[in-house]
Structure formats: C-alpha cells, structure tokens
C-alpha cells in the first residue's frame, strides 16, 4: 500500500461546519425516509446510509462541481451531499412528479446530471466500468473532470470490479474508486467470502492502483484522502482506490432489521458514529455547542419542509409513462 506525499488543503472552521451540517442533513433525511416508509409514503425498497455519512460528506467536499459521482442503490447520501435539494429526492422516493426523476427511477437510481450525480446503479459492480467511461471522456476531451465511484465491500468479488480496475489502471484514467466497507453484504459477512483482509485495497494494489485505507467514520480523514486522490486523478496521475472502513447502523434494506449481526458489534460501531465524533471534535476546536445545536435545528426544519413539499407532489400519470425511452423524448419502436 502506498500513499502520496502531496499535502491536502487545510480546512478552515467554516468548511468543517459545512461538513458537520452535511452529515446531519444526510442522517436526518434518512431517518425521515425511514419514517415515511413506515407510514407507507415510501414504497418499494430503499437502502439507507445511516452510519456512513462521513464518506459522502468528505468526498463531496473534496470534489469540484464539474466532477462526477457514480453511486449504488445506497445512494441517498451521495446524491444529497452533491447539493441536490432534499425535496426532489424525497419526492422521488415517494414516486411523485416532483421527484428527481419524476418517479421513474426510484430510490435505487437517484440521478441529477445537473449536480454531477451521474446515476445510482443497482446491479452490483456495473457502475465501475461506467465511471471509467466518464473518466475516459474527460481524459479525451481534456477537461479536468474526475469520476468518483462509490460501492460496497460486497462488490469486490464480481467480474466488473476487476475489469474496471485493470481498465482504469492501463488507461491511467481520472477515476477514484471508493469502497465503503461496512463489513456486510446483505446478510453475509464479506470476510466469510473473501480471501484477503482488505477486500478492495488489497486487490487494487495488485492491479497497480494507488491504494489507501481510511477510517470512513472520520470525515476529516476522509476529506484528506479524497482531496489527495482527486488531485492525483486531476493531474493525470491515474486512478486510486480508497477503502473506507465504516458500518451501516440498520439493516441492508428497509425489509431487514439486521438481526444477524452480533449486538456487541453494532454497539461498538455505534460508539464510532461519525456524527457525535465530529460534534466532539468541533467542540474541542472551540466551536460553541449552540452553533452545532442550531445546525441540527435548522436541518430538522428543512427536512420538515421537504417532507411537506414532497407529499404535495402530484402522482405521475400516463404522459410520463411513455416518455423518454429515446432521445427524441418518445418511446415509439415502429412507424
């Protein structure tokens, strides 16, 4: 494993407060999404990112607005962290016309091209090669854009992962792969089905990628490695793999209470919850408690507003059903 020497930019307190706010927003959004599921406003499935906020917040802060995010079905955090407002995301979960994709994608496919969120993908591993393609396009067109591709630890044993890593390395693509290692696939521990200790980082090193392991529950640490890897990619020095160790507090998806995990393990990781940790760090840095409390209160109010706006959204109808299969806006396959 190697690390680069370039020092990442130092963060001022204002930026740190933004990181705090972002994590709080992601947390409260997900909690609201869960409540709305219990109230049957959110149908289908959804995969919450509670416990993993530091990764989304840290990376988003290190990206330029023109950079690209590629996420998985566990993508609410990454979408919001790039600046997509809460209302369209919540409305998308509820299947309303004011949803991010007017209800046509749902929780697992959040996309906002305008914000650089280039899709959330629900087939394990598929988006790694797609992120390579975007990076290739940036390289070819000589823009300085970087593709950042997030996925879980369970995704390291599927073919597309391996094809993409090799591809990124040989073409020296401006792509940063981020494995959010929350230890579990759905119901199986990744370590039970994977021969190496660090499922993403150990493999990536073998493919010739810069490979870094980070505490994924420490937003400052995440920001630092993100900034370094993104700068490297932007400078044409090639792809990196960052394996961020973290934990999901809940089950895999809304249908899963997560009972297969030992209580001590859950407790141990909840003690490492990135948000209280950052709260404490900011207090140590001299931030007044009231400042942080105010952020929490403001976010709570914003979540309430978003909830009301999303609920007020119209139910989509037939006009949307047949739209946008093709670039001409239609769906016709015959004359």
């Amino acid at each position, binding site marked *: 494993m190697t690390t680069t020497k370039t020092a990442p930019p130092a963060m001022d307190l204002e930026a740190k407060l933004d990181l705090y706010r972002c994590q709080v927003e992601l947390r409260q959004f997900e909690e609201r999404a869960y409540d709305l599921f219990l109230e049957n406003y959110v149908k289908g499935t959804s995969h919450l990112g509670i416990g993993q906020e530091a990764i989304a917040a840290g990376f988003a802060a290190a990206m330029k607005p023109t950079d*690209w995010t590629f996420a998985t079905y566990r993508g609410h955090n990454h979408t919001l962290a790039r600046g997509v407002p809460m209302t369209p995301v919540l409305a998308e979960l509820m299947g309303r016309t004011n949803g*991010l*994709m*007017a209800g*046509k*994608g749902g929780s697992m*496919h959040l*996309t*906002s*091209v*305008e914000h650089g969120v*280039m*899709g959330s*993908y629900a*087939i394990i591993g*598929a*988006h*790694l*090669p*797609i*992120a*390579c*393609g*975007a*990076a*290739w*396009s*940036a390289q*070819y*067109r000589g823009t300085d*854009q970087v*593709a950042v591709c997030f996925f879980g630890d369970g995704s390291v044993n599927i*073919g*597309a992962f391996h*094809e*993409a890593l*090799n*591809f990124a390395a*040989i*073409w020296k693509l401006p792509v940063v792969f981020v494995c959010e290692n929350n230890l579990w696939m759905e119901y199986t521990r990744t370590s039970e089905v994977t021969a190496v200790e660090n499922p993403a980082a150990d493999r990536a090193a073998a493919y010739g990628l810069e490979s870094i392991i980070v505490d994924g529950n420490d937003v400052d640490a995440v920001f630092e490695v993100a900034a370094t890897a993104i700068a490297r990619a932007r400078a044409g020095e090639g792809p990196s793999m960052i394996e961020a160790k973290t934990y999901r507090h809940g089950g895999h998806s809304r249908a899963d209470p997560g009972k297969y995990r030992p209580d001590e393990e859950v407790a141990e990781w909840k003690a490492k919850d990135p948000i209280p940790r950052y709260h404490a760090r900011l207090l140590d840095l001299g931030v007044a408690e009231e400042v942080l409390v105010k952020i929490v209160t403001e976010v709570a109010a914003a979540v309430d507003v978003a909830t009301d706006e999303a609920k007020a959204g119209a139910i989509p109808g037939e006009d*949307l059903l047949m*739209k*946008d*299969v*093709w*670039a*001409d*806006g239609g*769906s*016709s*396959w*015959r*004359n």
Partner: protein
Amino acid sequence: MAQLTFREAIARGIAQEMRRDESVVFLGEDVGAAGGVFKGTVGLLEEFGGVRVRDTPISEQAILGAAMGASMTGLRPIAEIMFADFFAVCWDIVVNEIAKSRYMTNGQMTFPLVIRSGNGGGLRFGAQHSQSVENWAMMIPGLKVVVPSNALDVIGLMAASIRDDDPVIFLEEKALYSSKMEVPDGEILDQLGLAKVLRQGGDATVVALGNMVPKALLAAEELALAGIDCTVVDVRSLVPLDTATILREVSATGRLFTIEENPRLCGWGAELSSIVSEEAFYDLDGPIVRITTPHIPLPAADALEDLAIPSVERIVTTVTKSMNA
C-alpha cells in the same frame, strides 16, 4: 464507384464518421493494430491514431461500460464486441444500464453509442461463435437494432447509427463479410427504420434480414421460374421497425413468409406475424409462415449447420408447398 467488400464497408463507414466528428471514438479487442479479427477495421488506427482507436483488454463489461460512460458525457463511442455470442458476458451493461438509464433518469441522459458485433452462423464455428442474437436485442426497450445485408447499407446505416442519439446494436453478419458490391464514392448516409423492397412480385411477400436477404433473393428467382412471383423486403432495422412498408407489401400479395436465421422461439418473425395478424388479417390469403433455424444450438459440422440455417432450397420448397396448399 468502387467494388467494396462488406468488411471494407465497415471501415469506410466508421472512417467517414470519424472524419466529420471528433467526438467519435472507437474501442474493442484487436480492433486497432490488428484491424479486427474479421479485418473489418483495417486502416482506422493508422488514420485516426491510438487516442481515438483503442485496443482493449478482453473485458467486455469494461468495453461497454466505458462506451456508456463516455457517451453520457459527450462522446460518441463505437464499441466492438468481437462475436455477438459474447454479449452474454456483458449483457448487464447493455440491458440494465445502457438501455434503461435514459428512461430511469426521466430523460436526463442520452447514450449516443454504437455497439458493433459479428453476428450469425455459416462459418462452421460451432454453437458459441455462430448465434444470431438480433432477437435478444430486439426485446429490450431502449435499444435500436440494425442488421445490414450489403456493403452499401453497411456504410449508410453505420453513419446513421453513429449520428443517432440512442444506443444502436449494429449486427454484422459474419457470413457476409466477403460479399462484394459496387458502392458510390463520397458520403453515404442512410436512415434507421426503413425497410427496403428489393424485388416486387404479386404472389407472396418474403421478408428477410441480414444474411437471409441474399438467400431470399436467390429463392425468389427460382420461385419465379416456377411461376411464384415474390416481393422481397429487407427489414434492415428491427428497432425502429418499418411496419408501414411491411404491412403494405404483405397486403399487396396476401401472403407473408419470414426468413430468419435466429432459432425458432421469439424470433423477429414472430413479432411481425403478430403485427400482420392484428393489422392486416383480412388482407391475408393464407397462413403466415416462418422459416427459421430450428430451436437448437448451432452445430459445427458444415453438413449439420447447412441443415439448420434456412437455405435457398428450404425457402423454395417451403414457399412452394404453402402456396400450392
């Protein structure tokens, strides 16, 4: 005018578009230095250089994933899947990602890309290198499917596919790579979704695709000698499908025969048969007859493969029998 083989037409079509549009790039296995395993892309690396014409590792998911990611961010990639059979190892990217992402994102993204692939049998390559996969592609909403039957159409439809803003599966019939025809000089641009009437006759309408088109034409000549005059329609594009031309030509003769290289079940002819039954039933004078490869994996031995794939002889006997019934 120049005599051009089908394989030379591939390179000419791609080159024509790469000259006019910098955003067209090309990637695949052995496509650059080697000029393609079927020699369909000879000269492209030399003319356009290694930045635009790129040899890849044997990683079909990476090839198509890269094409998709590049197309959603401003390029017009052409990706080659060497044999159409290999779509099976990267079908996820085609079906779940490329075909659906425009719809799922409510039109936020477009995917102007072309996936070229060597399709079909006749080369004694056995069951894993001979499949006709046009029916796989046709049944997926969000994919356009083009299958040219001659060198001129290769160039014009290639150009149209590259300029199209939607993903196009461009199937090149391996059995036709060596076929030749006179092709005019200068730019050639065709249109997707147009079937071509290649021969007009009053008795029956024979609709064929790709490698089955020259066979249908030969069969029509023989049938004419026996007093059965056939219209022959080259479908050329399965999606979009030119149902107007097909319905018109079927209504004019009252009979429809489809000539398909794909195995029996769910071939494109079944869809045509359904459309014609629903929309031109009262113009029909007899049953719709599908002539296909039987529902078997293709065997390697020449004798067996020839028995499996519709032949001129099988077309002639089947049509004759049905017309005289």
